């Protein structure tokens, strides 16, 4: 088996999602190489070279790859797929953007968001918002997979793989990066945070999220939101936890003013410990919470911040 993992990074730092993806690759077994495609991304390649268990890092360093545009990334990965049995990327918005097209160009299927490796060709993945788990066998020569990071631990970082520089440049000219609004935050990222506190429609408005931030400050937590809170304009989309937002599985998830729509549960029900704070004692969130507190959030959340 020969596996290529597409690294997730921002040209500066290797994202931890890459480490979960490599774990999935190592479970499949065989030779695992990691591709770092980006611009001025030498430091990322050096970080990737330290991932335990991989054979080498391929670096494609060119302005064409700076923003990971699908039109430029796809031909690069297709070219590197020669002789490979598996192509893996994390099921992030970047991986989801690029990998299906790679699969189509190779005339193979993509198996999306795998949560376990059963064998080299058989994988489990959630369907119907996690209300069913499908075991899927690939019949293709090359398996294109996106990996749900919560399904796999991070691999260790204690290796020293060689770095091979690629000369290939693929610039389609069909798409161009214009701008981005990235929400700068001192807090940990949602998908890698150990503790998350999320707010829902019950928060009432965006300003009230400062109540959650006070708790987050005490716990070193990330702050998330339900779809209802994002749709209502309380907070920005990057905070959404759920079926179509971010899938998280922290040690501790505190849901505040969140009723527990199935779409939200799909994104957080694999958390180790779930706390729900809601004034409606019939809220579905209580049916999956380890600890439920039926109370007015405006009363108890400040108390929580105080007592931590």
């Amino acid at each position, binding site marked *: 088996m020969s596996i290529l993992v597409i690294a997730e990074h921002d040209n500066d730092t290797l994202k931890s999602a890459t480490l979960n993806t490599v774990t999935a690759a190592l479970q499949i077994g065989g030779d695992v190489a990691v591709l770092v495609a980006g611009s001025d991304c030498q430091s990322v390649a050096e970080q990737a070279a330290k991932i335990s268990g991989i054979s080498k890092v391929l670096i494609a360093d060119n302005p064409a790859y700076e923003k990971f*545009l*699908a*039109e430029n990334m796809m031909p690069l990965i297709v070219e590197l797929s020669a002789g490979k049995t598996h192509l893996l990327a994390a099921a*992030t*918005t*970047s991986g*989801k*953007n*690029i*990998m*299906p*097209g790679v*699969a*189509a160009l190779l005339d*193979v*299927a*993509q198996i999306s*968001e795998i949560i376990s490796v059963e064998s080299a060709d*058989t994988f489990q993945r959630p*369907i*119907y*918002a996690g*209300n*069913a*788990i499908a*075991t*899927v066998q*690939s*019949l*293709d020569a090359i398996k294109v997979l996106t990996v749900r990071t919560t399904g796999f631990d991070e691999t260790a970082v204690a290796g020293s793989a060689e770095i091979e520089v690629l000369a290939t440049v693929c610039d389609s*000219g*069909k798409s*161009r990066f*214009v*701008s981005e*609004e990235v*929400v700068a935050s001192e807090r940990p990222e949602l*998908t890698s945070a150990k503790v998350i506190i999320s707010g829902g429609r019950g928060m009432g408005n965006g300003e009230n999220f400062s109540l959650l931030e006070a708790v987050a400050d005490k*716990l070193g937590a990330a702050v998330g939101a339900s*779809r209802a809170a*994002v*749709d209502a304009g309380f907070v*920005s*989309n*990057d905070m959404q936890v759920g079926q*179509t937002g*971010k899938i998280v599985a922290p040690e*501790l998830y505190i849901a505040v003013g969140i009723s527990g729509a199935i779409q939200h549960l799909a994104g957080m029900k694999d958390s180790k410990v*779930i*706390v729900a704070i809601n004034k409606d004692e019939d809220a579905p969130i209580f049916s999956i*919470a*380890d*600890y*439920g*507190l039926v*109370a007015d959030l405006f009363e108890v959340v400040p*108390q*929580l911040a105080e*007592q*931590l």
Partner: protein
Amino acid sequence: MKVLVTVKRVIDYNVKVRVKADNSGVDLNNVKMAMNPFCEIAVEEAIRLKEAGVATEVVAVSLGPKACQEQLRTALALGADRAIHVETEQELESLNVAKLLAKIVEIEQPAIVILGKQSIDTDNNQTGQMLAALTGMPQGTFASKIVINNDKALVTREVDGGLQTIELNMPIIATTDLRLNEPRYASLPNIMKAKRKPLAVKTVEELGVTLKEHSKIVSVNAPAERQAGIKVADVTELVDKLKNEAKVI
């Protein structure tokens, strides 16, 4: 300018999903079916492009059994001008869907194809991207805003870190995210009118696409149930439990 918009018939999002006793799949017998919510957003965006004078024609397309025509009629009632139904009883994997759609794109030559970013049944999130790769059209996935200026489109995308705006050469493929728009409801007169709008039925053979089997479902199981825990009386008890019982803080 023509807009092609795709519509998938899926289980209604309010229905509780049950896995079949033989673990072959999910029970869809006598279950309410509806248009995939992300496809509703796609149809709405197509209609708004027409209302804004950017698009001149909206063509809705669906693939699957005859019953898909219900969802196509809904799209027509919402404002699509005509519909194409590729009728097949076969379960279609995403790549086969993308290949069939690529054929429709070749015939219809739309300036923009709008698809839902994922369907709420298989949760694959891949057909739009595959169609872009097969047609060579650039893609704006997970769109929260689409602006078309002659031969270029500006697409704002919902990405993990926030929002990203890219410029694409037309023609393009766009896939919809939740906040692109709020879909309208069809009015009764429009539902009546939709019955007379043209709906063409095509077969897979007519389109000359050979369907390939790329994967098979070995089994489908219900996920491990999470048990409800306990209710705590107040914040003090909660903090105590988290510290001394769960040991997570």
